[in-house]
């Protein structure tokens, strides 16, 4: 909870590079950097996903993610946190979200990453649209995250 802990929150239409996000939280005082990357999958049930796109209520999403980080700092002994989420087109296999947390000890960092992605998926106003291949019936769906991890 000291003031030299840094937060990085970004909703971006640029490709997200894991190493760039992880480097933001590196610190010679930290022994551990834990990350989670969400990548788009090529299938949903029996349908082949052709493209995906993300949309966000950007200022509320940023505020909401910042709120989650503040809450995480109370729950877990962590140093710096970076959360990047992509909007716009996100081809299959691409990274849609990266969460990186540095910590002096590994357990708190890994637990914070796990908690942050769970909360992000149920609370932050971001939406994913899947467009299906014509070969499997076509169409498009706005997805809804289940509350199960």
């Amino acid at each position, binding site marked *: 909870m000291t003031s030299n802990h840094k937060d990085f929150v970004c909703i971006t239409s640029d490709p997200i590079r894991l190493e760039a996000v992880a480097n933001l939280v590196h610190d010679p005082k930290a022994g551990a950097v834990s990350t989670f990357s969400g990548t788009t999958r090529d299938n949903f049930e029996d349908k082949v996903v052709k493209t995906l796109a993300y949309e966000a209520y950007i200022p509320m999403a940023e505020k909401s993610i910042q709120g989650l980080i503040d809450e995480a700092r109370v729950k877990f002994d962590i140093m710096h946190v970076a959360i990047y989420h992509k909007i716009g087109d996100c081809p299959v296999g691409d990274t849609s979200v990266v969460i990186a947390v540095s910590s002096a000890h590994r357990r708190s960092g890994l637990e914070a990453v796990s908690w942050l992605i769970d909360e992000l998926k149920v609370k932050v106003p971001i939406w994913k649209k899947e467009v299906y291949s014509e070969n499997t019936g076509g169409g498009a769906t706005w997805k809804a*995250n289940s509350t199960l991890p």
Partner: protein
Amino acid sequence: MAETQSFTMLYFASAKDATQTDSEKIEWSPSLDSTKLTALLVERHPALKPILAISMYAVNMEYTDDPSWTVQPNDEVAIIPPVSGG
């Protein structure tokens, strides 16, 4: 000075598909609670009805959880369909 007061509605994802727009200004009226707001929006955009049934409102970028809430002039109200980030 009987100037018309308004509030802004924001539409995202399935709500945007239903309204065919991402935002609109609506003339404000007093005592517009969430039940009345929903009725007003369905009247303007019938396609919103099934979406509103599963969505939340965010007012000035906060989820509403106060049942006594009513729309205030210049509020930014967003329909938040079930989220799917991550």
